[in-house]
């Protein structure tokens, strides 16, 4: 039986869990969030991605109730949550600093929210034990936060925010304080827990790899605006703007003038050079400025002239050796520097190319995305 793909955003019958409707937030003269419309669906793992100061944290704090929109509405299950204070929202947040209560044990930290609900003792105990098991913390229940490691603290923060079984869990840079290896492990753990509990997660991060790994959809933000909201693969393979293409991963951008016939596009990009060719579904006016965005791993590098849609000759300027792959910086006679990547399938001593070698780079006409802005 084929598994159905989880994509509620493509289903017009599906009702979003959260709706931002024309939301603007200003702090004095500064506009942190600029007229945003956004739908987030139940059971999604939604990532807000952007550089620091782009407004992603403000957006999250509005969901938690710590900030109120200057204009517009935020709906949770169809209800306007603007006037609802944070302590009455079915939303919990995991703080960047974890914000564990230092005077309480791990057990009491997790039980904190449940006690405020006034549940009976047995129910609280059962729920805390369940959370401790879920986050593999049972051994540390009696300890204080300063007596456990950073990774364990992160899991306590997660357990505490999940204990009340919120409709929506907000995670503010949840893995920022962990080292790389632990971060990668924890990413998968987060996805696992999200799947097990069926909670909707909204994560704020500036780490694009993290967003791509964990999220069902990613919203790329810049200066208070949503640049693109899409699945990780769509954001990577079909960015809607040069900003998004540049923000996510490595990319070569070649500026030129468009000359379109049907889906075929010829791009005049440099004096005396043959036009580059690409396919597109968009429409460009004759002579319109356009940008060809091509990922380094989609560019082949060879010693002999290959046949193909786009073939250029250049000289190797720099080599970045990353172990599994190498990135070659190839300087073209026009002055452009193009990055091309190759997997290091052979040992480094048998590498084909070295500095100042004349090489050919090539890519097919479907490898690049052509963008108007």
């Amino acid at each position: 039986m084929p598994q159905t793909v989880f994509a509620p955003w493509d289903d017009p019958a599906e009702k979003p869990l959260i709706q931002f409707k024309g939301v603007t937030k200003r702090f004095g003269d500064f506009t942190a969030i600029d007229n945003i419309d956004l739908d987030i669906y139940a059971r999604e793992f939604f990532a807000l991605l952007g550089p620091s100061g782009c407004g992603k944290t403000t957006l999250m704090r509005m969901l938690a109730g710590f900030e109120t929109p200057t204009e517009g509405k935020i709906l949770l299950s169809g209800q306007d949550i603007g006037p609802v204070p944070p302590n009455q929202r079915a939303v919990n947040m995991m703080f960047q600093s974890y914000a564990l209560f230092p005077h309480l044990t791990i057990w009491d930290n997790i039980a904190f929210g449940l006690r405020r609900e006034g549940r009976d003792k047995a129910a609280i105990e059962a729920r805390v034990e369940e959370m401790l098991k879920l986050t593999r913390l049972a051994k540390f229940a009696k300890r204080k936060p300063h007596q456990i490691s950073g990774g364990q603290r992160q899991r306590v923060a997660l357990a505490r925010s999940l204990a009340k079984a919120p409709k929506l869990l907000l995670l503010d840079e949840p893995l920022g304080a962990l080292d790389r290896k632990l971060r990668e492990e924890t990413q998968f753990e987060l996805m696992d827990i999200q799947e097990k509990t069926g909670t909707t997660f909204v994560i704020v991060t500036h780490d694009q790899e993290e967003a791509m790994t964990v999220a069902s959809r990613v919203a790329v933000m810049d200066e208070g605006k949503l640049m693109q909201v899409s699945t990780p693969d769509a954001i990577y393979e079909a960015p809607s703007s040069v900003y998004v293409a540049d923000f996510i991963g490595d990319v070569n951008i070649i500026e030129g003038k468009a000359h379109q016939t049907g889906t075929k596009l010829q791009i005049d990009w440099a004096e005396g050079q043959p036009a580059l060719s690409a396919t597109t579904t968009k429409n460009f006016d004759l002579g319109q400025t356009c940008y060809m965005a091509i990922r380094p791993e989609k560019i082949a590098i060879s010693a002999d002239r290959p046949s193909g849609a786009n073939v250029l000759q250049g000289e190797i300027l720099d080599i970045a050796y990353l172990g599994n792959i190498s990135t070659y910086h190839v300087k073209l006679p026009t002055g452009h520097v193009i990055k091309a990547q190759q997997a290091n399938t052979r040992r480094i001593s048998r590498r084909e190319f070295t500095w100042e070698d004349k090489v050919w780079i090539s890519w097919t006409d479907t490898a690049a995305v052509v963008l108007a802005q």
Partner: protein
Amino acid sequence: MRRLILIAIPYLWLLALFLIPFLIVVKISLSDTALARPPYFPQLDLATGWQGFVDFLRELDFENFTFLTTDDLYWKAYLSSLKIALISTALTLLVGFPIAYAMARAPEEWRPTLMMLVILPFWTSFLIRVYSWMGILSQGGLLNSFLLWLGLISEPLTILNTDTAVYIGIVYTYLPFMILPVYAALEKLDGSLLEAAEDLGCSRTSAFWLITVPLSKQGVIAGCFLVFIPAMGEFVIPSLLGGSQTLMIGKVLYEEFFSNRDWPVASAVAVVLLLILIIPIVLFQRNEQKQRESEG
């Protein structure tokens, strides 16, 4: 060797400036009063050698301590001091905590100024500040004239030379000792803890009681000890602002020394006061150590 010297310095300091004077006071407290100079007997004369020292020890007794139990003035003064010190510590906390809280919550650029304002009174002599309270609290003083002018009272209130004036004086004098440690504790408090508490269902008020209060506990305890210990032996404030009926052990001590010239009894009073104060001092030290451990 270097370590030994480093450790020896503070110990020599304590020996010279605390232990030796204390032993001298203990020695006087065990002597008898005499019309002489110095006004007590026996005197230790090292020229008489070992036999003289033994004779000297034989003359010492606990007579003065027994005397303290026979006259009810002394234990009443101790109890009264204890009461005044406890009440004024509580009052100082009541006044100091909100001030420290407001300072910790103030915008960061204001905090040094506010801190300065708390410390500023220390730049004037303590005596002058207590004297100026006499001017404020007396029958024709500033406070009474102001209240009369407002029409709140028709006759001047008697505040000066009462216990109330003593409380005002102690709270005013020791307020910075309460504010500073409490402020230090509150300032360290991470604002996101309060947000987390609210996020988990606390109201602002319950977040204050469940998070702010327990996390500033160490500062409050430190502040209370810093006020309680000196207030217990306070002498200047009750003698300037208090009335004849204000009984405090510091005042009794002063009278024994300077009016009665009964050094041995005065020393006995001082030794007992110190023994009473050792209990809170030990508790204070233990609190400090616990705090260091929990932070380490």
